[in-house]
């Protein structure tokens, strides 16, 4: 079984690298006109019926032709598509791909006249990062632009491409008004080359930033949002009045944070609000209704429970495929897990089918999952739970293109559209399907295997055990207990403590002690997803915590009782209950 898997991975790598080396050998002057033809493939156009055996021609970054009777041009590099299926390039509808730096920190160091990074001149800094506007509370900076932060390349972008993703909405994840997102292709030498559309939407999260500074609670988050929207509306009105007749009027005091909200108030720009539970979603809809905003929900795990209001207000959902699952064993001494948690895990893969049935538009997003191999696996679970396959394809292609206003250039396989294509061996939603080729802007990209366990620790560091964590999110240390269980590259476990208790998800462990996992943390009454990245050395670990809507924090951990490395697993447990 394992050998089979390795063989297939090997095949994929070889194929991809062959393709790439072929492409890279083409001289530069010719690369300006790249022509490819995928022949004899099943083509899921999304715009029309699926072509069972057809050809897609790509020229100069665009789809030139598609059809059953199209033949490959003489100057095209031909890819034999027998046994392959061509889809419009998959779009990840909500990520922070390419954004490495904390927007809050960048703004603080870049603009406030503070210490600039030594590698860059102040002018470069000023060009890159908009400075923090001091007239608004920290975390309420709607003027922040994702494109100012996106950098091409990197392991995360590679992992997403290898999972079949060609384009992604990328947005800063810190703050309450987090800033404005960009839709980017996951290939290109520069941010400009990557950018498909920017700005796309305003992003809002409801997590208070830190204790002691308003807004420090969920209560304050709502009033701060409300006051700022009111202030923006007033400035807009004042500007209109002043422009009409300035005589006798004091000129309105401008504020670039408020100005950045004008397109939101006029409904030109949609607002993406991060909301997962039913009540978070209903609150977001209430707020959007109050200010007549064009709302998009991101997350949406319980969105089916609010489907009535979402449909009524025509609110689309960027639905996370980062499904929760149990990661620890149940032990007789422990409290049983609450029914609500058991239900939520079982319900999560059903949400997509329910939204489709209720007529709520949705697009898939990876939900900050750490192992991108779960993306298609989890989409397949949604299909198994009753989501029609064509709806599932749409949720990865045309729907996000529509929601982000680029359906005229992206999201289907039609002549004239951007040549973003995802080519698989097998149907996209069959388990065991592999991504064979990915074309972005008409060029094939390098694929890396994403199978879990491929880089598994073999006799390396073992993360298993009970760890005492000390988590610092900018408000002093908070302690939690982290229980980990590692099997090869697979990591599972749970976290319990002052920030709530939950199973960890999307966990992986590397050979040299690198670990990654996500867990929902409860901060200030709001549950929010945190991504832990760190390394283990001996019985200590340290790393960083990324929380949606916050500046990155750090954590350290210690393991009082290391796992017995060489002890074989005991086959029979003592049967205490037998008396």
């Amino acid at each position: 079984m394992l050998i089979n898997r390795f063989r297939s991975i090997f095949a994929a790598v070889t194929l991809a690298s062959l393709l790439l080396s072929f492409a890279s050998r083409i001289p530069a002057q010719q690369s300006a006109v790249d022509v490819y033809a995928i022949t004899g493939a099943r083509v899921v156009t999304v715009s029309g019926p699926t072509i069972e055996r057809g050809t897609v021609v790509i020229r100069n970054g665009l789809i030139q032709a598609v059809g059953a009777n199209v033949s490959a041009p003489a100057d095209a590099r031909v890819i034999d598509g027998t046994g392959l299926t061509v889809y419009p390039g998959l779009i990840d509808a909500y990520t922070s791909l390419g954004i490495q730096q904390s927007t809050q920190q960048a703004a603080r160091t870049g603009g406030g006249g503070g210490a600039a990074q030594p590698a860059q001149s102040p002018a470069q800094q000023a060009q890159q990062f908009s400075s923090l506007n001091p007239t608004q509370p920290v975390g309420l900076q709607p003027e922040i632009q994702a494109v100012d932060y996106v950098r091409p390349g990197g392991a995360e972008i590679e992992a997403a491409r290898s999972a079949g993703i060609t384009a992604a909405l990328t947005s800063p994840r810190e703050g309450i008004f987090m800033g404005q997102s960009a839709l980017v292709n996951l290939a290109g030498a520069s941010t400009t080359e990557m950018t498909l559309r920017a700005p796309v939407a305003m992003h809002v999260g409801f997590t208070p930033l830190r204790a002691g500074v308003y807004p420090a609670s969920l209560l304050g988050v709502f009033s701060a949002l409300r006051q700022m929207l009111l202030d923006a509306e007033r400035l807009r009105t004042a500007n209109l009045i002043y422009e009409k007749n300035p005589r006798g009027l004091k000129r309105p005091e401008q504020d670039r944070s408020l100005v950045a909200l004008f397109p939101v108030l006029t409904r030109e720009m949609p607002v993406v609000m991060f909301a997962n539970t039913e009540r978070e979603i209903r609150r977001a809809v209430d707020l959007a209704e109050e200010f007549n905003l064009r709302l998009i929900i991101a997350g949406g795990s319980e969105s089916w429970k609010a489907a009535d209001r979402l449909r009524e207000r025509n609110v689309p959902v960027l639905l996370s495929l980062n499904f929760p699952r149990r990661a620890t064993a149940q032990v007789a001494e422990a409290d049983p897990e609450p029914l609500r948690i058991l239900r939520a895990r079982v319900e999560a893969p059903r949400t997509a089918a329910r939204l489709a049935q209720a007529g709520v538009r949705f697009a898939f997003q990876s939900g900050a999952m750490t192992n991108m191999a779960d993306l298609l696996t989890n989409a397949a679970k949604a299909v198994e739970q009753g989501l029609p396959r064509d709806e599932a394809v749409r949720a990865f292609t045309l729907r996000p293109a529509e929601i982000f206003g680029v359906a005229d250039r992206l999201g289907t396989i039609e002549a004239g559209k951007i040549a973003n294509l995802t080519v698989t061996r097998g149907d996209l939603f069959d388990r065991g399907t592999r991504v064979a080729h990915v074309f972005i802007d008409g060029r094939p990209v390098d694929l890396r295997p994403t199978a879990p366990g491929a880089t598994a620790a073999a006799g390396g560091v073992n993360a298993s055990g009970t760890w005492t964590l000390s988590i610092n999110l900018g408000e002093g240390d908070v302690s939690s207990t982290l229980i980990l269980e590692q099997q090869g590259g697979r990591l599972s476990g749970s976290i319990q403590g002052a920030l709530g208790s939950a199973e960890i998800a999307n966990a992986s462990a590397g050979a040299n002690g690198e670990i990654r996992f996500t867990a929902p943390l409860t901060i200030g009454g709001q549950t929010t997803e945190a991504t832990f990245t760190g390394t283990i050395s001996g019985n200590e670990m340290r790393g960083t915590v990324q929380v949606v809507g916050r500046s990155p924090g750090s954590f350290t951990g210690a393991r009082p009782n290391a796992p017995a490395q060489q002890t074989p697993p005991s086959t029979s447990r003592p049967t205490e209950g037998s008396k």
Partner: protein
Amino acid sequence: MRIKMRRTIAIVLALSTLSALPLFSASAQRTGRSQQRGSQAPAASAQTETLIRNATILTVSHGTLQNSDILIRGGKIAAVGQNLKPAQNARIIDATGKYVMPGIIDCHSHSMVDAINESTYAVTSMVRIRDVLNPTDVDLYRELAGGVTTLNVLHGSANAIGGQNTVVKIKYGRPVEEFIFPGAPPGIKFALGENPKRTNFPSPAGQPRRYPATRMGVEEVIRDAFTRARDYKRGWDEYRARAQRNEKNLIPPRRDLQLEPLVEILEGRRLVHAHSYRADEILMLIQIAEEFGFKIRTFQHALEAYKVASEIARHGAGASIFVDQWGYKIEAYDAIPYNVGILVRAGVNTSINSDSNERARRLNIEAAKAVKYGDLTEEEALKTITMNPAWQLGIDSRVGSIDVGKDADIAIWNGHPFSVYSRVEMTLIDGEVFFDRQQDLARRADLERERVTLEQAEPNRAPASGGSSPALPRGRRPAYGHDDDELDGGDDQ
């Protein structure tokens, strides 16, 4: 490998179908219930009658009725008397040997909120409890099981002027919109003494101590806020006057969400619920209120209210208190269990509240204590958890007693509610059953079955390795929990 995988998928599918069953039956029950209410249209539910038959009715407003019936139509009490004749399709609840009273009203609750305090500023009148309600809080169900139907969900007491409250009916299981008590006047939390001056609460690491730090400071903060509110109102009044004179080229003043609710208080459109302990600070707040021309609706906790009962009565405020909780901080030492009795005799509208998800389940017993200590009559004591809090929340024309025309918010007990041996059989809100003890008992087996099915579903199965360390038990609630203290590092009591 493939065969194995297929089998796994098949098992997953089979299990997930199974696990869907209880959910289906739950939703079927729900539709069943609504069909019971009205078979043709949603509006038809208003037509269906319910008859509670042959009960001992504690009306609160006009004594105890023996062997009497309550007829409910359209969510309202349509008739109270003997041998009432219901419509053909009416639902009959046989209450022979049972005691029926109006649903209990808790005038100080922090149930169903995801945040209690915005403790950064001394004045946080801009924050709204309505924004952070959590209708899935299981405490709500427990409160229904204690006969409670209405809550005054308050902001915490970290600020001299705190956030805006929300009055809800506990329509557990419904979307949050349906909880909001229709037409209840808006209110706000104030707080005096140790909590707003942050005596017992360290400031967050690296933060300076928040102003005010003394009772003088608290008074100043309130006076300052209302002075600003008065100016703010004047600014808007001037703008409106100029707009009315058709003056052109006017830019409206800024809307200030902090001051708007204070203007509503000045205009008598928002009820003030003031957390307070000491007699001197109660007098201080009465003075400020009278200086600015508004009224305090309730003094919450008010353990020393008995010392200034006549002054409170003269001002026209109510008191919402504990019967025998004290000594948990310095300002809570000078308390007596006769507080209720003295206040009621002085003519102060007095209610007994919980300020605790735990105590909220047994407010009937708290009221019974007032009979022992304060020599209240049974009806006077019942009023402290029904009619009186209804007045304090401005909803006394809708709830608080069993009278024709009022909302059918009703608790049915198996014995007299002042007995510790009694328990609630059924709780109705607007004529609909939201707690039914028999149904609860019957449902337990279903939930157990659902758990077994869910635990076998793929996402709930433990990883193959079986895990090594036992999961830690979840933190358990102490018997005397005060919600603010636990959830928010905040405070209230």
